[in-house]
């Protein structure tokens, strides 16, 4: 069996195992409805964090407008599924959100991706706010009251599968030739350009994939919580997602997944402690930034191939 096949099998196995474990936990009543909300939040956060990591970690463009693109997906799906309350409408809503988000990302990307560092951060922050305020003032989105009575179409297993797909897309992109080009732009724009790499193009590709996955996450948000209001997609939400990316390690997809799970669980188990939760949350972040400023995983990934190497080392030792 080739090493690649083995790697794929390990990941597929891990995905199925995770699915089975959750399913068993639900069937045996260990995961209650309340726990299921946390599970859903974690899955949505994984979609968001992996997508934002493509933009911030892989292409090196600091974006603070991720929640805005999430809102585009949430509202598109909310509006479509209220008219078509079935799975077809759900799929159509996701698709519509992804396309709309991609178009918006392309239009705002042309001027903003020419900026760097803090300038880009402020520009994307503005974009996120513009999206939110536009939604706040449109009739079709019902303004500040938001959309309620959205049919509940998202289930945790759809979210699980879609989150896996997003991870797959992101991981494949990072390891592809355009992905390599994107990383080279992050590392050194001048050198990348001098090698004939179209730096604007690859920044745009990463930005668009990231924002499109945010729209998917928004679609799940809308059809699970059934109520969406513009204030859910404000600047603080963007920062929440960014925290996951930074905590897990910018440039590490498995780091983002880990951080989304970790922070989701932390929030869940500290929910009873009220304000104390926020303090612990902040302390956890500060500790990570002191002892591991590049995030828990840095730029490293958990790789299935390392498992084989480790086994080999063990074998050669004994």
């Amino acid at each position, binding site marked *: 069996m080739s090493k690649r096949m083995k790697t794929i099998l390990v990941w597929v196995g891990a995905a199925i195992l995770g699915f089975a474990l959750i399913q068993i936990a639900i069937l045996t009543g260990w995961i209650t409805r309340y726990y299921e909300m946390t599970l859903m939040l974690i899955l949505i956060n994984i979609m968001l964090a992996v997508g934002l990591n493509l933009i911030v970690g892989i292409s090196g463009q600091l974006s603070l407008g991720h929640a805005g693109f999430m809102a585009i997906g949430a509202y598109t799906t909310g509006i479509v599924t209220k008219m078509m309350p079935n799975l077809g409408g759900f799929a159509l809503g996701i698709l519509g959100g992804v396309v709309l988000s991609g178009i918006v990302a392309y239009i705002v990307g042309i001027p903003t991706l020419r900026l760097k560092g803090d300038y880009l951060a402020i520009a994307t922050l503005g974009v996120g706010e513009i999206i939110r305020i536009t939604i706040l003032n449109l009739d079709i989105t019902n303004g500040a009251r938001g959309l309620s009575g959205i049919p509940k179409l998202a289930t945790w297993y759809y979210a699980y599968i879609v989150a896996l797909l997003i991870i797959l897309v992101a991981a494949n992109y990072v390891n592809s*030739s355009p992905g390599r080009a994107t*990383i080279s732009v992050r*590392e050194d724009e001048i*050198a990348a350009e001098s090698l004939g790499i179209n730096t604007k193009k690859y920044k745009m590709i990463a930005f668009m994939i990231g924002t499109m996955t945010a729209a998917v996450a928004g679609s799940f948000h809308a059809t699970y919580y059934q109520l969406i209001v513009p204030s859910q997609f404000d600047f603080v939400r963007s920062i929440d997602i960014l925290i996951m990316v930074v905590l897990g390690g910018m440039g590490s997809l498995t780091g983002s997944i880990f951080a989304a799970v970790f922070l989701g669980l932390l929030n869940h188990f500290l929910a009873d402690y009220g304000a104390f939760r926020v303090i612990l949350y902040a302390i956890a972040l500060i500790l990570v930034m002191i002892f591991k400023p590049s995030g828990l995983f840095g730029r490293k990934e958990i790789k299935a191939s390392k498992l084989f190497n480790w086994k080999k080392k063990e074998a050669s030792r004994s």
Partner: protein
Amino acid sequence: MLEVKDLTVHYGAIEAIHNISFSVKEGEIVSLIGANGAGKTTILKTISGLIQPTNGQVSYYNKAIEKESAKQVVKEGISHVPEGRHVFGGMTVFENLEMGAFLRKDKEGVKSDLKRIYSYFPILEERKKQDAATLSGGEQQMLAMGRALMSRPKLLLLDEPSMGLAPIYIQSIFDIIKEINKEGTTVLLIEQNAKVALQIADRGYVLESGEVVQTGTGQELLESDAVQKAYLGG
């Protein structure tokens, strides 16, 4: 092969170079020398399509390229090693070299070029699995040159290859430039270190505040009084 005519480039309102003309013939090493701010880097960036000129022509094999994108220029066989060791940290030496062949589709050719580059720079082969950011300055310069050669250029543009390097590295880098040239790559070199640059050059141009003030063979310029006074310290 390369003909630059009346080239003028502005950064905003500031004129960086003014009516510069020079030529590079196939198989030559040509050095442009001059002090800081003479416009050397601007010239290379204009040739490689990183910036657009306000006026003048750059023709390559009799074809105008001054309006082309950097990608197009690389495809046509001009490779630019930017000033100051721009290697990709976080990628291994090998991955850096791979990036140099980004636009190429011929896998076999890339493999044989990789071997050739390892033969110029054996240290890169030794460190091929090492993070490029952990290389020393001289090694990074070698990597940047090796990476540029991976696109199999006909014309190599080198921006200050000696910058910040120990004398022992400078000598070996210039020896390798000569070797690369002997094997058929034309080299356009810009340098502040006029002495080494002129020693290996077939011809040279002296730039001063954006204009060519003197030209000749490498030897002639080395012996010229003006160059001696300005760059070689009497």
